[in-house]
């Protein structure tokens, strides 16, 4: 595994199941030590796995349920392919016209908080990215790709959004400075250092930069 690869929580859980098919204390502590930034997700996940194992197996699907399941899975494929074709022929208008990460998140039906969690970012850092307070050329490509993946967009669109002029926090209409621009001085590495991220996540993002 590349040491520069910002591994997602899904990646970690996939590997956890593959390495420890039966969740154990040792397995859990091993993974917490390896991925301290995903501690909460790992504990919840292991608890859910044990909870599922403690329950009696459910009954097999009835013929009707099995048929419905296959039909719904086929529909899921059709829907996905339709959406992908649409995106290929004309990138989603909402995504294209978005001018900030929060607008991209809204267009994708998600939230920046959720995206931040998935990418091991804290909200302070995410807010700086959203407001373009970090010098765009210092933002690692892996982060841009990760944002694109979780925002249902493309790396090109995310790059474009991150390169715009800095945005102030929303201010009341009676404040004259609401549209003033501010200089962007902070690099991504500096923003990571100033964040509240756990040390392991800081190291991961610093290495990726």
């Amino acid at each position, binding site marked *: 595994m590349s040491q520069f690869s910002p591994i997602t929580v899904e990646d970690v859980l996939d590997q956890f199941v593959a390495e420890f098919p039966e969740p154990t204390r040792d397995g859990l502590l091993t993974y917490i030590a390896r991925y301290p930034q995903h501690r909460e997700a790992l504990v919840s996940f292991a608890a859910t796995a044990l909870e*599922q194992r403690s329950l009696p197996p459910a009954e097999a699907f009835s013929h009707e349920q099995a048929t419905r*399941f296959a039909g719904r899975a086929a529909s899921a494929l059709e829907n996905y392919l339709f959406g992908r074709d649409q995106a290929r022929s004309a990138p989603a208008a909402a995504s294209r016209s978005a001018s900030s990460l929060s607008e991209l998140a809204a267009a994708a039906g998600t939230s920046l908080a959720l995206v931040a969690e998935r990418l091991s970012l804290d909200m302070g850092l995410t807010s700086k990215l959203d407001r373009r307070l970090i010098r765009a050329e210092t933002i690692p490509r892996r982060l841009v790709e990760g944002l694109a993946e979780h925002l249902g967009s493309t790396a090109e669109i995310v790059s474009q959004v991150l390169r715009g002029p800095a945005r102030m926090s929303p201010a009341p209409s009676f404040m004259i400075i609401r549209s003033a621009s501010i200089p962007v001085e902070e690099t991504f590495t500096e923003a990571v250092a100033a964040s509240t991220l756990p040390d392991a996540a800081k190291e991961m993002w610093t290495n990726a930069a």
Partner: protein
Amino acid sequence: MSRTKPAPEEAAKDLPPVPPLTRNGYVRNARTIRQIANHQGKAPADIRAIARIRDEADPRWLAAETLVFFMRRADQAGDDRTRNALFAELTERCKGFFASQIRGFTPDRREDIAQEVMTKLVALIFAEDDRGDFAQVAFWSLLEARTLTAVERARAQGRRYESLDEPVSADGESRMSNLERLEAPGLQSDDLTMISEGLAQLDPHLRQVFLMRHQLGMAVGKENRADEDPADPSIAFHFNVSARTVGKWLTKAETQLATYRKA
């Protein structure tokens, strides 16, 4: 469906090279590499026919990881017929998994959870980037991980802590103290079998807390949060509640399970 890991083998020799995976340094196992290498020169109609073989003892049988490879390849080549046929086969193989692995929900809710996982699986398998690479490494582990995540989300939607935080009786308080004194709370499989019926009746949150304590061996919690060790989190630390609250949850679980222990 084969959920066991194939034994390490030497990679296939004298066979055409298989395109490597790119995500997180993932590597397919030798069985998958051999199956891909053996079949990647075959006509789509042959791949479709072989994919329908369900007998794992048949040397032509294809593992789920291999099906994913050929599905992606067909998709990239614009071969809709092969892509859809292989996906239908994979769906068929997943039925048994979903039927047995999503437990403690009504049949309708179980179908919804299975559908949610399949929708995400489709997005992974056919992603244009490498985010679905793990499906070619350990498909059933990936499916289990995504299913448990969906189950966790479904549980969280219906979670209710408030009713669990009511005061406990004096008897309960003393039992709570006993729980906190337990140093090695491991449950033997016999114990689990004895109380499995009771566990099934417990509130899902209480059931989780009970298993965190007794199967994962997590501590109840420290009086002072500053004394907590994030590398070995306690239950109280995880839920961001006091050790006393966790003690109440455990007491409620113990009280409800007591009947089954005696039975």
